[in-house]
């Protein structure tokens, strides 16, 4: 319907009938670009607040899911059913002393949390949250997402190195080894999807998955690419750095891994980035394999409601994946780093290559 949220906002303003007066006003002053900037800033602000709220909710949800699995209650005291617990955590972390170890590399030590936090937010720019609900439909969207996610190993290595702590360094080295070896199958199985769509744009990928086969099976890529989906999901969980792949932390071995030495808000930024990452990676899985915001019945819904309904659909699917990741974390132990690398290089990458090859073959054969 609309290419991105900007146009949606313009449409809504037009619908209410205030876009033209405002536009004329700015035109009169000769600074109509200011209006554009304001709208973009509003978009960013909305996205930022949305992500922060999501992250807060996710920390609460994680505790509740863990508690459910472990036959406990989880947070119950602050707010209804402990919903305000993340706020209390934030307040506590802000009140903590910000310690920089004496022998740490101060600049890199301070820079690392930002470098991990900002890409975690940037990933959301080409993610379609619903129909028309996308900040910017980049024509290289998927490539952008993979490239941005690849920044985090650098930040982790910086944090681990700058802390001047052996546990931190080992955690960082592990995390980087893991990230590198799992980004490859991740990218390879994503490419198999791109072969179907012929486009790296996330909107195109979602649109290609709308509609049904035989009237009841949604045209999601999970049905065309079951192996690709499994590989992508496993690699994503490794990317998120969660159990069974949480080597960057592995708290029972390396205390807290690369952020052992961090405290206060810097620690909070790692924490926030981790959960933002959890959300974004799950959203990417949904976009690539589970049809993004599209569901078969979406065509029956009045056009004005489609953005809202599709947002709901997208969130339901994303939270399903998130719940799976949390559930997995509570039931399986951690692997060993060499076993993880072995699986990554000797099983996942060959399988991803075969999957890519077979997909390419089928598509080429179908063309004749």
């Amino acid at each position, binding site marked *: 319907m609309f290419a991105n949220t900007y146009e949606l906002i313009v449409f809504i303003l037009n619908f209410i009938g205030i876009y033209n007066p405002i536009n004329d006003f700015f035109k009169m002053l000769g600074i109509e670009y200011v209006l554009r900037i304001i709208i973009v800033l509003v978009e960013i602000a909305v996205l930022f607040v949305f992500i922060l709220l999501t992250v807060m909710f996710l920390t609460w949800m994680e505790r509740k899911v*863990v508690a459910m*699995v*472990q*036959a*406990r209650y989880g947070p119950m005291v602050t707010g209804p059913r402990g919903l305000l617990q993340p706020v209390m955590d934030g307040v506590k972390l802000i009140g903590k002393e910000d310690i920089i170890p004496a022998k740490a590399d101060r600049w890199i030590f301070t820079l690392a949390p930002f470098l991990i936090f900002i890409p975690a937010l940037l990933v959301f720019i080409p993610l379609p949250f619903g129909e028309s609900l996308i900040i910017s439909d980049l024509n290289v969207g998927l490539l952008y997402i993979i490239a941005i996610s690849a920044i985090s190993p650098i930040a982790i290595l910086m944090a681990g190195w700058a802390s001047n702590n*052996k*546990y931190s360094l*080992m955690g960082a080295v592990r995390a980087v080894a893991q990230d590198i070896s799992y980004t490859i199958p991740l990218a390879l199985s994503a490419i198999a999807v791109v072969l179907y769509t012929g486009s790296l744009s996330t909107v195109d990928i979602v649109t290609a998955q709308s509609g049904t086969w035989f009237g009841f099976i949604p045209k999601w890529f999970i049905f065309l690419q079951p192996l690709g989906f499994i590989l992508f999901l496993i690699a994503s969980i490794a990317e998120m750095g969660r*159990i*069974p792949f*949480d080597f960057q932390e*592995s*708290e*029972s*071995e*390396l*205390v807290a891994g690369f952020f052992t030495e961090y405290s206060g808000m810097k620690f909070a930024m790692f924490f926030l980035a981790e959960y933002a990452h959890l959300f974004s990676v799950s959203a990417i899985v949904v976009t690539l394999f589970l049809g993004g915001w599209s569901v078969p019945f979406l065509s029956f819904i009045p056009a004005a409601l489609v953005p809202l309904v599709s947002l709901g659909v997208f969130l339901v699917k994303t939270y399903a994946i998130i719940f799976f990741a949390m559930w997995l974390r*509570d*039931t*399986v*132990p*951690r*692997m*060993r*780093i*060499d*076993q993880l690398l072995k699986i990554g290089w000797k099983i996942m990458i060959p399988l991803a290559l075969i999957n890519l090859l077979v997909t390419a073959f089928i598509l080429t054969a179908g063309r004749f």
Partner: protein
Amino acid sequence: MESDELLINMGPVHPSTHGVLRFKLRMDGESIRECTPVLGHLHRGTEKIGEMKTYLQFIPYTDRLDYISAFPNNYAFVKAVEELAGIEVPLRAEYIRVLTMELNRIVNHLVSIGSLLMDLGAATMIMWGFRERENALQLFEMLCGARMTFNYIKPGGVREDIPDGFMPKLNEFLKDMEKRIDDYEQLINGNEIFHMRMKNIGVISAKDAVNYGWTGPTLRGSGVDYDLRKYEPYSIYPDLDFKVCVRNEGDSFARFIVRMDEMRESLHILRQVVDNMPASKEISSAKYGIAPMTGTPTAVSSYFPRIFTPPPGEVYSRIEAPKGELGFYVVSDGTTKPYRVKIRSPSFCNLTAIPSLVTGLKIPDLIAAFGTIDVVLGDVDR
């Protein structure tokens, strides 16, 4: 490629050293070249304290050795004293003692398996284990008012009789536990990653295990059929039907499985104890000219002299504690206090094998192997 050696101090403050144990690790990247356990951070001089306290006063100190399973500690010392002084124990008291000790074995294995899995990164098992442990601790609380440090088993018997309502609750626990152990097996044992982490890790041959002085489930995981309850029976164990759980692999996985099996065996023993519990209310010995405990349960310590002097002599008495052979060597010089108390604690002897177990492995394997040895630092350092 040449790489520098990395020296890591693991502990004494570390999430998975189960207290204040310290490992000095010389690492080659992620592999362990040399591992040196450094003990003594929890040393409290318990053996020396034993020389300064009367026999009865020392019993609470034994609670603090292996604080996860304090009943066997109580019993091991009391058994030594009883052998020293030749005190006879009423049958009901022996049944109650075995009941508490086997319950404590289950508690100990729950904690052991739970913390092992938590160290491997699966935090659910310890919560499940603590859920059942809580029920057991409530039973202990009914019995003697304490949850972890009991001071319950006294020379000549036990402190108090079983209270009303204890037996139904115990039966409920036994029935519940049966199902729970199946749950645990499903959660842990059916997990491929767990097998990957445990199998062929920390392997020790039967010969080495014996040479290191290993005992308990750790030794039985290496295929040595050795259980003092069976082969040097004490208390009422000769009358009970149970089998010794042995696995032959000698790796971490075998030690874990032995613990799981032992929990089932303990349940089996507990059921027999419940069925055959003598009806007499006599829970403390009449020897030493004291009236036996009869009627309603009240504090029985008054029936036993606070200060008594066993004849001069020495005795080494050992039992099968949940972690292995727990021995007390007590020397009496005919005064009110022991001349010497030496404690042979299973945790300490089992821990000594750690360097040979983990050399050449990785840090995560050290955690896994260490977890299956089941060490409590209060027991190691004394």
